[in-house]
């Protein structure tokens, strides 16, 4: 194949750097893999009564003020019966819950619980009534069809989250958050549960495979930086216009001042 021939025939000047980087990635990857296997062992068993009991304790200590002792809901928080493990994993796993204060919408912040505690809470809530479950690994690992995902993303998601997942404004101070750096699991869970004001995209609207494709697309644009260079936040013409006025024209005006300054 001429492709491999080309590869041997050409030594990229950055090849050494790339090699180094690759080595580092592999070493890091090995560590990560090791860590994740140990994490998987310690991970909460969904079915075990112990997990649910632990979750219940955590719930009553941290969530019951607003959601009620039996998660039945109060004036300050909705009932969680039937929201499913996915909803809890999303809300607590992204730090949106427990909520810091009332506002237009719950803000993302560093998670307040460990992964294990999040899972315990999630399975406790799941035990109260049937609801969407935490998605299986193969649905969120980015192995799908990016082109199909991109098309579905444009039709179902881009109007709020922007075509490049940069986020956007909603009414009365609410907003659709940026999707860059959101894990595939959380994106999947958001789609099936419809957190905050986001509509629900159930499996009959967007099938699990389609959801996998959407996640694949988002991962593609995260992994492949824009071929044109810096993205300026992917905000579109407004960012481009500000850039040309401030930096483009700014640089040029500085040059005009230099050109016409009297030399000493």
């Amino acid at each position, binding site marked *: 194949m001429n492709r491999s021939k080309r590869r041997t025939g050409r030594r990229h000047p950055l090849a050494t750097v790339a090699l180094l980087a690759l080595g580092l990635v592999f070493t890091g990857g090995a560590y990560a893999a090791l860590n994740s296997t140990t994490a998987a062992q310690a991970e909460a068993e969904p079915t075990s009564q112990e997990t649910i009991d632990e979750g219940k304790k955590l719930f009553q200590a941290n969530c019951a003020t607003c959601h009620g002792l039996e998660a039945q809901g109060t004036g300050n928080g909705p009932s969680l019966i039937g929201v499913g493990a996915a909803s809890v994993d999303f809300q607590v796993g992204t730090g949106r819950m427990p909520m810091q204060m009332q506002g237009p919408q719950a803000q993302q912040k560093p998670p307040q619980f460990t992964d294990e505690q999040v899972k315990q809470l999630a399975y406790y809530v799941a035990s109260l009534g049937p609801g969407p479950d935490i998605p299986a690994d193969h649905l969120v690992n980015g192995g799908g069809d990016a082109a199909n995902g991109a098309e579905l993303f444009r039709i179902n998601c881009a109007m709020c989250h922007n075509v490049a997942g940069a986020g956007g404004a909603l*009414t009365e101070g609410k907003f659709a958050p940026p999707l860059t750096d959101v894990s595939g699991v959380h994106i999947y869970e958001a789609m099936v549960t419809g957190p905050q004001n986001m509509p629900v995209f159930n499996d009959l*609207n967007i099938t699990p495979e389609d959801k996998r494709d959407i996640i694949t697309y988002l991962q593609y644009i995260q992994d492949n930086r*824009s071929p044109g*260079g810096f993205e300026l936040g992917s905000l579109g013409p407004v960012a481009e216009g500000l850039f040309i006025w401030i930096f483009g024209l700014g640089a040029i005006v500085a040059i005009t001042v230099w050109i016409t300054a009297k030399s*000493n």
Partner: protein
Amino acid sequence: MAQDDHSGTELAAADSSHAAQEFAGSTGTAVIPQDAFTNPGFEPHRPRVTDEDPKRQKRAQRTVYTLFYLSVLGSVWAIAAYMLFPIESNDVGAVRLNNMFVGLGIALALLGIGFGAVHWGKSLMTSAEAIDIRHPIGSSQATQQGAVEVLREADEESGFSRRTVIRNSLIAALLAVPLPAVVLFRGLAPQDQLPVELLSHTMWAQGTRLALDPSGVPIKASDVTIGSAFHVIPEGLNDLEHGRLEEKAKAAVLLMRLDPSELNEQPDRASWSYDGIVAYSKICTHVGCPVALYEQHTHHLLCPCHQSQFDVANHCEVIFGPAKRPLPQLPIAVDDEGYLIAQSDFTEPVGPSFWERN
């Protein structure tokens, strides 16, 4: 002091030089004091360091040619980068490198010439200023009269003002002659169609199934859970040979399910929804952007282009923004197999307002 228009002879102070008389004109309401300052003339010329210090001159010279050679280097690098960073198919990263390195090479080539030339001009070329004398822009009196004379003679010889019958007929002919060209532009749009007719109908008809955008898979009422938003096209749209996008631009629909208790329906439209499932045109009644930002708890729909907001719970009336009319509702029902179908076409034209809309 409080005169309005001065005469030209008073023009003095600012225009003290002899040529000023040529520029004489009314000064209007400008105030020209008799004891205004006069122009002190040019400042003595100040030499630059490069004019006096041969060392500095040498250094400036070195800087200039270094910059020009840097430019050559940039050009060579750009060509080299073109070959060193080929675009491999399916590799976006390669495009990024190609763009960056070819671009930076060209940039260096251009900036080298630019900085070099300007520096040369600033530091080494003689710095004396030139002085041009301005002359009034308007032609002299004699030339003006000459021009008037030419025109008068031409008029005389042709009889343009005299033979009014001929002149008027020519004007009429010249006015009429562009009209056929204007009429030709009717052909810009199909001859056998009328826009108002087209704008008043969409692809929706009685019994057309609601299908998912873009796959075209029909939707069952039971698929639409509370809080859902489905982006909908009429079934069969994807099979259209012609005009798929034109039909889609009118027929795109957003399907939502609310808790029926939260839905405040007009009595005459109570039958247009199905168990809390409502379908509204996705095309904004302002200027036609897709209104697709649905908030499932507030039931607000937001248009991302101009921020019009519609309240789905209240038959999509406008609650904010420049739109006036509610989004048109598509009456829906369920067929024997449980699929959602349209009861009819929209009962009013969808999308932006137009003159003959009523």
